[in-house]
């Protein structure tokens, strides 16, 4: 026990040093800083999706709805009602939480195919609402969303925003790990593995499904709020089903039900998308083929691949948070 703790601390220190070095090196790389900020948002959002799909076994192809609810709540509160940013962000999380619960009430009774369809429909509904309603400025979108003030100082610089985002990613990941390795997290995994047995052992399946949806919605909603404050402008085109599919692609590519999967997936898919810009109008074709390739050749994502490599290297026994049913 003591030994492993020392190891963990050592590894954490190595990571921190690397991170610090990376940050110093990136100071003036504005484009990369922008991308990394997006990567951080995606990491939070995809981690949320992982709690729902990877750990609780419930698919969502409508997470753009929560991304939108977070972004729009925070943007509307700060621009139209003058609410301070630090109140608007929790409010955005709360609204996303509420939306998550509303979606989950019917969703918790459906099996996967119909769940997929329901979440797609919810995504469509939210998109139609924000692109039509006058209070969201319809297609015009919302401009001049304030930046995040921190210690009386606005996070205008992408560099400081990134540092803030990294802290947020760390916070949300720690929370995710705490949840996963608790009674609640075990209930989630029990439901994913076998809902009948989970009910038989005293787990209120519906309640925990709703809880998973709600937590997931908060993660994605928070990421949405960050998006709004980072870019300063939001409009409905960001919140289409393509966004939901992208979150799912990141999760699949990184690997579900793992700590590192969402992180790897968010980073690689973001950079891949940017690299594919070279292809101009052929870009989306390659992106689609990429999804197929992941499904065909990397069903457990990159983190699954790492696991396999590690297992053959170290003959490590026990796989802690991996499920391998695909």
């Amino acid at each position: 026990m003591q030994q492993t703790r020392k190891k963990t601390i050592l590894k954490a220190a190595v990571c921190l040093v690397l991170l610090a070095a990376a940050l110093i090196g990136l100071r003036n790389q504005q484009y990369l800083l922008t991308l990394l900020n997006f990567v951080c948002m995606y990491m939070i959002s995809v981690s949320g999706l992982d709690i729902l799909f990877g750990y609780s076994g419930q698919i969502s192809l409508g997470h753009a709805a929560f991304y939108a609810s977070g972004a729009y709540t925070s943007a509307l509160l700060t621009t139209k009602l003058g609410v301070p940013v630090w109140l608007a962000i929790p409010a955005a999380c709360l609204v996303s939480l509420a939306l998550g619960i509303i979606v989950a009430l019917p969703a918790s009774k459906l099996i996967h195919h119909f769940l997929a369809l329901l979440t797609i429909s919810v995504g469509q509904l939210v998109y139609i609402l924000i692109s039509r309603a006058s209070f969201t400025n319809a297609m015009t979108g919302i401009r001049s969303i304030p930046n995040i003030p921190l210690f009386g100082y606005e996070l205008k610089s992408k560099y400081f925003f990134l540092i803030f985002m990294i802290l947020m990613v760390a916070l949300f990941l720690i929370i995710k790990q705490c949840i996963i390795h608790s009674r609640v997290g075990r209930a989630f995994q029990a439901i994913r593995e076998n809902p009948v047995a989970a009910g038989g052992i005293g787990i209120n399946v519906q309640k925990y499904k709703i809880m998973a949806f709600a937590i997931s919605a908060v993660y994605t909603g928070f990421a949405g709020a960050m998006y709004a404050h980072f870019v300063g402008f939001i409009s409905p085109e960001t919140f289409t089903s393509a966004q939901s599919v992208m979150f799912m692609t990141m999760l699949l590519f990184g690997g579900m039900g793992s700590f590192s999967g969402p992180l790897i997936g968010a980073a690689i898919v973001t950079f891949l998308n940017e690299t594919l810009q070279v292809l101009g109008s052929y870009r989306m074709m390659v992106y689609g083929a990429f999804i197929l390739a992941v499904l065909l050749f990397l069903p457990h994502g990159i983190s699954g691949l790492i696991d396999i490599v590690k297992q053959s290297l170290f003959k490590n026994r026990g796989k802690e948070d991996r499920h391998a049913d695909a």
Partner: protein
Amino acid sequence: MLTLDQATIQFGGLTAVDHVSFTVEKGQIFGVIGPNGAGKTTLFNLVSGVHKLTSGSIRFLDKEISGLEPYRIAESGIARTYQNINLFSNLSVLENVKIGRHIQSRSGLAAAIFRTPAQRREEAAIQDKCMELLTFMGLESKADLPAKNLSYGEQRRLEIARAMASEPQLLLLDEPAAGMNSTEKVELTEMIRNIRNMGITILLVEHDMKLVMKVTDLITVLNFGKMIALDTPQKVQNNPEVISAYLGGGIDA
């Protein structure tokens, strides 16, 4: 402790359990036997809430439990195992048992996120209790393996361990010996007795007559959903109606 009163369930036109009444007293090992398709597993599903009664009642500790959701019934102190093993197969053996502690622990989401001292104490207690149970079931060396990597007999024992983790007052065992070899069966017999000696009442569905006759205090026999006998093992063995039911239906066909 558990009382079935005219319990009946129909699927379409078929009456799977037909006006069955019996009472299980505290501390008993109560057997349910019958030919294939007699309605034994359906009876279990009724008690554990998977199916809802068409008519009649099921009372547990003087409270009506029929119609409750399965998790409510589990909370009231009934745990079960499954004929076709229902483990959380990709999770580790230890985690399977830990999930069994669900209703015996309290920490919610907030406690988990903030890692409150109470939550950490509880987690430590869960860990200890579960390792204790695994030791009791002889699975302690496999604690970190995924449940699906266990042998058939081990998986059955794990199911019992998981059920035991919820500290039930009544344990429903659905064919625990199925697929076990004879040494495992002997161990199982011992285990069932030990469980009873811990003060847990047991309702047992089993095909293996030798085992049933050895451990049970009282046996009820079902045939085509109807109860045809309720007696001690010795008397049931000599009951002509039971014999003809088994001959007619082909015992263990």
